[in-house]
């Protein structure tokens, strides 16, 4: 039994790492713009498809496909922000860009449906079937090891970027007070663009790693995004550290609920936690002033 409990812990960390990658982009955008991006899920799906086609149609290396998906996500983030969100923000309404994210989401899903069709793609990375035996009868697949490694590296790089680089500090300044940051010579529009690019790049990369786990269809990302929203709320809107902890927590909750209760009750457990957080600790796991979140 101890082996199974330990194995479920490993499973939970892997799942949590994936959720963190998806949720980080959401929390970054919320932290800077105070905007929920419903199209984020579809960037995850496009990242997964980019990795799939790079690997299987063009015969590329799976690890390289993660970088390709990151690039595709970044370009898509830049395009969507420049073409749709930025012009709407200039009109001064907070509601228009929010509604636009729903429109972009539906548009992207239907374009993917047209291009890729509705039939699930079998996206297996060469590391999916490599089973690495660990202590006490536990195991991890090569793919899951990559997920943990890439997630850890990404989180570390993002943290270093935000804390130690000029651009990261400028981004935090825009998150705290966009107008004052503008007076200090920072161009908020450039920083908002950067936020979209980073968030979408993270989503694309997340898609490349989720591809071999997800059921890859044009609607794949939507199955993850609801959980990612819950993680962002549990972690604290716009709080990067809180999002990381909440992501891992939700991953572990899912694994142990599957083991000791029933996987059919996962959503009940996770969303009960979300409601409790909203009721008793609305600032999230790590309580900070919102202005200091990013």
């Amino acid at each position, binding site marked *: 039994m101890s082996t199974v409990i330990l194995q479920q812990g490993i499973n939970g960390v892997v799942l949590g790492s994936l959720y963190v990658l998806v949720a980080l982009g959401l929390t970054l955008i919320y932290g800077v713009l105070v905007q929920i991006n419903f199209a984020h899920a579809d960037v995850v799906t496009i990242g997964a498809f980019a990795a799939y086609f790079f690997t299987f149609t063009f015969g590329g290396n799976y690890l390289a496909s993660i970088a390709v998906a990151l690039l595709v996500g970044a370009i898509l983030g830049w395009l969507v922000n420049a073409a749709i969100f930025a012009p709407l923000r200039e009109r001064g309404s907070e509601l228009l860009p929010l509604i636009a994210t729903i429109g972009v989401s539906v548009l992207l*899903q239907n374009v993917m449906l047209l291009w890729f069709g509705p039939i699930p793609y079998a996206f297996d990375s060469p590391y999916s079937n490599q*089973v690495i035996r660990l202590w006490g009868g536990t195991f991890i697949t090569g793919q899951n090891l990559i997920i943990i490694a890439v997630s850890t590296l990404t989180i570390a790089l993002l943290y270093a970027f935000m804390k130690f680089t000029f651009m990261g500090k400028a981004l935090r300044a825009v998150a705290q007070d966009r107008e004052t940051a503008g007076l200090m010579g920072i161009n908020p529009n450039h920083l908002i663009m950067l936020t979209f690019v980073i968030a979408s790049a993270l989503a694309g990369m997340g898609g490349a790693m989720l591809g071999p786990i997800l059921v890859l269809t044009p609607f794949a990302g939507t199955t993850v995004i609801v959980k990612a929203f819950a993680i962002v709320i549990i972690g604290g809107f716009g709080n990067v550290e809180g999002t990381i902890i909440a992501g891992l927590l939700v991953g572990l909750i899912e694994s142990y609920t599957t083991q000791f209760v029933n996987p*059919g009750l996962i959503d009940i457990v996770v969303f009960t936690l979300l409601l409790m957080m909203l009721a008793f600790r609305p600032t999230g796991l790590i309580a900070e002033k919102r202005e200091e979140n990013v």
Partner: protein
Amino acid sequence: MKTRSAIFCLGMVAILGMFAVANPAHAQDKLIKIGGLFPMSGPGAYFGAQDKQGIELAIEQFNKTGVNGYKLEVKFEDSACSPLPATQAAKRLLEQYKPLVVVGEECSDATLAIMPVMEQAKVPLLNAGSSSIKITDPGNPWTFRIMPNEVMQGVDIATHAYKRLNAGTAVLLYENTNAGIGNAKVFGDTFKSLGGQILADIGFGRDVNDFTSIATRITGLGKVDVIPTYTLEGQGLRITQALAQAGVTKGGGGQSIQLGTIWLPFGFEQKAGKASLGYVRIVQFDPTDKREVVQDFIRTFKAKYNQDPTHINAHAFDQILLIADVVRRGATDAQSVRDIMAGTKNFSGVTGSVEFDKTNQNIKMDTIHYMETLPDLSWKALGWN
């Protein structure tokens, strides 16, 4: 000038009238309108894509000669494998297109939702892919089903698991839908009544992506002989792979045999890879069947789509085949389609034969074909029915 205009108008009316007489296919009373309610989006969209292929092929064939002087026409709506969009699509179809008969849905929850709408409109609904018992028990006089229901399937597969595979223990895996829960329950009840033991009963939502935790839980249950699994293709793929990775099933070096349903399309084994080794599942269509109707279907399907047909293509094709048969037997409107269809006996289609009981359920079991996945990922027909 007025006289010349009047003559011109009369001439045009006469020409248009002659054109209408010369093209009976376009006359409203010589057309059998068929509504198609299938999932074209969402996780069940692969059903819709394949249903559409089968239906369009059948209609193309029948319209070469017509049926009793009628041409067949179909209009599809996306019912999304889900109750609310299915109901909306059904109402849209009935109000705007006014079909004489509707074919669909695939998912039981969606079919159950549209049944009262069809009954109210008094338009027959012909279903080929939903397994929930509630569709025909109690059902309603306007709904017909040509596939075996969950009880027929569940009893059959549980009996074969116990008697032919000598299974004594089972774990039930199913999506939390009417069909998933119903199929798993019938299997479990039958298996237990035969003397088998259910070690775990595991339901999950359609939003679950990672099945490693479920596979891990099964590793802690001891010896599991069979794992009946009731999911759509996408989750089915991931479950099969997770069970193999955890060393539970034959595909991963374990002993358990996964048992599957007709929900999975052909080609599943190629997508799941070696993990699907030893997978035993039922399909509605056996391409090795030597009957002329089957071989003709395979040949024409390949010619039109340049690919092998799946059992979803086949059961969609059969829906039109049956409607054409009903029209051939004299049906001209929705009421007569219903009445004549209810009296169907000894109809032979691509998937098997059809004979409806008083609940409009097909009672023939030759539409269930058992297959086992071989090491080269091809499958062999087990010939259990």
